[in-house]
């Protein structure tokens, strides 16, 4: 089955998914935010109810599609909407969140099967500074789920940081024996 190639950005509502996509997308991201109705509204007024969309143009060779997905368990079905042609996942963490890594724990619980299936990078965003302790806790959470992934602090507004995340995913695909057969991809 031939399909298009995609990268997915998953994370807490305030983790910076739309910002990441905007940093590398050739078009202004299309965002499907809606107002929050639970206690999340204390932290952020809106949340992604479907998916955010951006793209990287490759000229006549096509495009790489970028999708931001909500991390809440009730929206897990959205992953299946973009699964076909998915290359890898950027898992964003709001390093400034007052609730610590609770959101990451919930995301790992929700998406553990997908995170074993696709290469991913764990990216703490909005880190206040020295974050060795945070990254250690992230590593502990990954190991608790037997997940293996690089942990890279980013500023989601910086294109170079997001490019680095994409590069790591592509390296894992290329060298880790997880690249799709090129015949299975068609560039949209």
């Amino acid at each position: 089955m031939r399909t298009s190639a995609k990268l997915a950005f998953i994370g807490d509502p305030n983790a910076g998914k739309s910002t990441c996509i905007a940093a590398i997308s050739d078009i202004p991201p299309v965002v499907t935010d809606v107002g929050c109705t639970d206690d999340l509204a204390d932290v952020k007024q809106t949340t992604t109810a479907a998916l955010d969309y951006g793209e990287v143009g490759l000229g006549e060779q096509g495009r790489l599609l970028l999708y931001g997905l909500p991390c809440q368990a009730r929206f897990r079905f959205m992953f299946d909407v973009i699964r076909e042609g998915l290359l890898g996942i950027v898992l964003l963490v709001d390093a400034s969140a007052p609730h610590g890594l609770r959101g990451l724990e919930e995301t790992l619980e929700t998406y553990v099967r997908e995170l074993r299936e696709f290469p991913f990078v764990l990216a703490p965003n909005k880190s206040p500074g020295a974050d060795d302790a945070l990254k250690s806790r992230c590593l502990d959470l990954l190991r608790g789920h037997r997940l293996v992934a690089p942990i890279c602090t980013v500023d989601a507004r910086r294109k170079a940081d997001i490019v680095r995340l994409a590069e790591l995913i592509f390296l894992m695909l290329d060298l880790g024996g997880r690249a799709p057969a090129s015949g299975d991809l068609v560039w949209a």
Partner: protein
Amino acid sequence: MGLITREQESCTQELRRLVGKGGYAGAMLTLRDGRPFAQEVRRDVDSGKFAAMSSSLVALGDTVLRELSAGALDHVLVDGAGGKLVITKAPDCSGMLILAVLTLGDMRLGLALGQVEACAVLISDILRPRLAANRD
């Protein structure tokens, strides 16, 4: 948000009345961020997933129409071989509540659209005072 059990029960009764007309597999009233508020569905329907999917479809519908400069969303229709999914927003509720109704296979679309719209208005009548009070 402040909507309390009394409103939920009244809304559930409206959904029950709608489904009781015949031709429907279930009806769900969902908060805009995908959480169930009231429902009258078959036992084999995952209400949490139904609620989340309905809110996603509305969010996508809003987005598509906005991107195409095609005005405000009226309803979303997903037409399948075994039934139709009709989703609309409860009017005058600031887009906070979404009514999603799944019909049986042989239900006439025009009839379903009219009955769903009428149900949405009744739900709005129940909730509007409470929502206005919460805002004040």
